[in-house]
């Protein structure tokens, strides 16, 4: 039998009611047979007795049939009375589970099911309130970050331009010591500008305004360019940066080149930054018919077991990197993950503290924009 039917409430009620009807009937008929059969045969002629017993048997069978029909009918009634509100509640809970809290159930019943419905409505309202509040706070926070970051950009630009002017000799000749001091100022200034830039990107991601423009790119040329760009940093830190063997034919990918270059650039730059002088960072590119995989491995300080689960969270920085590189923003991996996800891809890593880290980025070759899944928002109103 179909397990769905076997496990349904209807079937259970039906069996129970049927048993309730048939058991007493069965016992009654047993007693009847035991008590009266011999006496009937003793009193009546055998032909009459047989006829009587046949009649009684037919009556019993009719009663059995009647009980069967009544049990079915009652089971349907009871089940409908209980399961109809249940299926409404199930649908409502399903919507809440999917993230749509605009759910209201009209309650007219005064029984236990009605009470459940009332409490359900209250719960849905509370969740909606909490969600609204959360969204409001999140919006304010993103707005605050946007405004603060824009306000910071003007003084940071002035600093940058002044430092540059001094270095270019626009304000007169400068000594070697003065130049060194200005260089330090420049580094701090650039790191602040980068922080502000990352803050703005993170705020845009949260506001859903981080737009994507997809086009066809050759991932080989693309990756070579990134590796070339990061070569300067690697050389400055005395780290060997290599790009593994790649195929001669172009590998075409549907991607947003600016965004993807931020993502892959971030991972490569992290690998260089968190590897001690003399170490190696290798970028490997593999492709099959469905996806492209980038493997970026370093021989760096690694990520501790405790830090690993939180690596893609905003503002989170590994406990062992703080004293190595003071200027990280803790936003790079958050932004990176969002970009990779928007390409329909995934990013993961495995790392051993003190030995190194390997990041894996897998992007489907026919990726198109994956917008965050929005729950259905049309209100749901039903009656119990």
């Amino acid at each position: 039998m179909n397990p769905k039917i076997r496990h349904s409430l209807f079937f259970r009620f039906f069996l129970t009611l049927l048993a309730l009807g048939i058991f007493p009937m069965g016992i009654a008929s047993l007693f009847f047979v035991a008590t009266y059969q011999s006496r009937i045969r003793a009193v009546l002629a055998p032909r009459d007795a047989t006829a009587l017993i046949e009649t009684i048997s037919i009556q019993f069978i009719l009663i059995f049939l009647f009980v069967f029909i009544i049990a079915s009918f009652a089971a349907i009634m009871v089940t409908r009375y209980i399961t109809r509100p249940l299926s409404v509640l199930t649908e409502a809970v399903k919507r809440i589970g999917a993230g749509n809290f605009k759910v209201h159930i009209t309650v007219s019943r005064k029984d236990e099911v009605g009470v459940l419905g009332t409490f359900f409505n209250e719960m849905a309202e509370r969740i909606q309130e909490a969600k609204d509040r959360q969204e409001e706070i999140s919006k304010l926070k993103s707005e605050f970050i946007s405004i603060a970051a824009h306000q910071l950009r003007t003084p940071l630009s002035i600093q940058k331009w002044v430092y540059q002017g001094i270095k270019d000799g626009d304000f007169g000749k400068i000594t070697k010591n003065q130049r060194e001091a200005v260089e330090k100022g420049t580094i701090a200034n650039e790191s602040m500008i980068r922080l502000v830039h990352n803050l703005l990107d993170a705020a845009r991601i949260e506001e859903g305004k981080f737009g994507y423009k997809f086009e066809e790119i050759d991932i080989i040329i693309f990756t070579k360019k990134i590796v070339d760009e990061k070569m300067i940093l690697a050389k400055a830190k005395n780290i060997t940066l290599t790009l593994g063997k790649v195929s001669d034919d172009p590998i075409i990918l549907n991607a947003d080149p600016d965004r993807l270059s931020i993502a892959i650039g971030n991972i490569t730059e992290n690998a260089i930054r968190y590897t001690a002088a003399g170490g190696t960072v290798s970028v490997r590119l593999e492709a099959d018919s469905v996806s492209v995989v980038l493997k970026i491995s370093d021989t760096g300080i690694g990520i501790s077991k405790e830090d690993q689960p939180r690596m893609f969270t905003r503002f989170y920085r590994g406990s062992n990197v703080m004293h190595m590189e003071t200027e990280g923003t803790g936003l790079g991996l958050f932004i990176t993950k969002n970009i990779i996800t928007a390409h329909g891809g995934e990013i993961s890593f495995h790392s051993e503290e003190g030995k190194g880290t390997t990041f894996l980025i897998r992007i489907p070759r026919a990726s198109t924009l994956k917008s965050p899944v929005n729950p259905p928002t049309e209100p749901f109103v039903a009656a119990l």
Partner: protein
Amino acid sequence: MTTDDSSMPIASMLKRNEMKILVVEDDKFLRGLLVEKIKHEGFTVTEAINADEAFAAVHKNPPHIILLDLILPGKGGFEILTELKAQHDYASIPIIIISNLGSRDDVDQAMKLGAAEFMIKAHHTPQEIVETIKKVLEANYIGK
């Protein structure tokens, strides 16, 4: 520091101070730094701190190129850009946006409205801005 690019035809015009540039920027300090740099390159510079001054300057003596900030007191850079591009006499003046806005939407909007370039102040030095000005001038006047 003056870059030696006398190979560019624009350079000879700059030597004779023939290139007129309008700088629309409300921040006094940034404007000062930028104007200083541009003057040094041989441009004839007019300054404006808001939309009214910018329009007045354009009407009085149309520049060869405009550097335009987006966030200004009163009428913003996007509106100035729209209005200038809508006026037949001035529509062909190339406009470089120099702003601290810089989201993709802002850039897209500015380019759609007809800006020649979009530069984020915090990400470019005055020297890079000067290079871009020359590049845009080349493309708009010499190349034609």
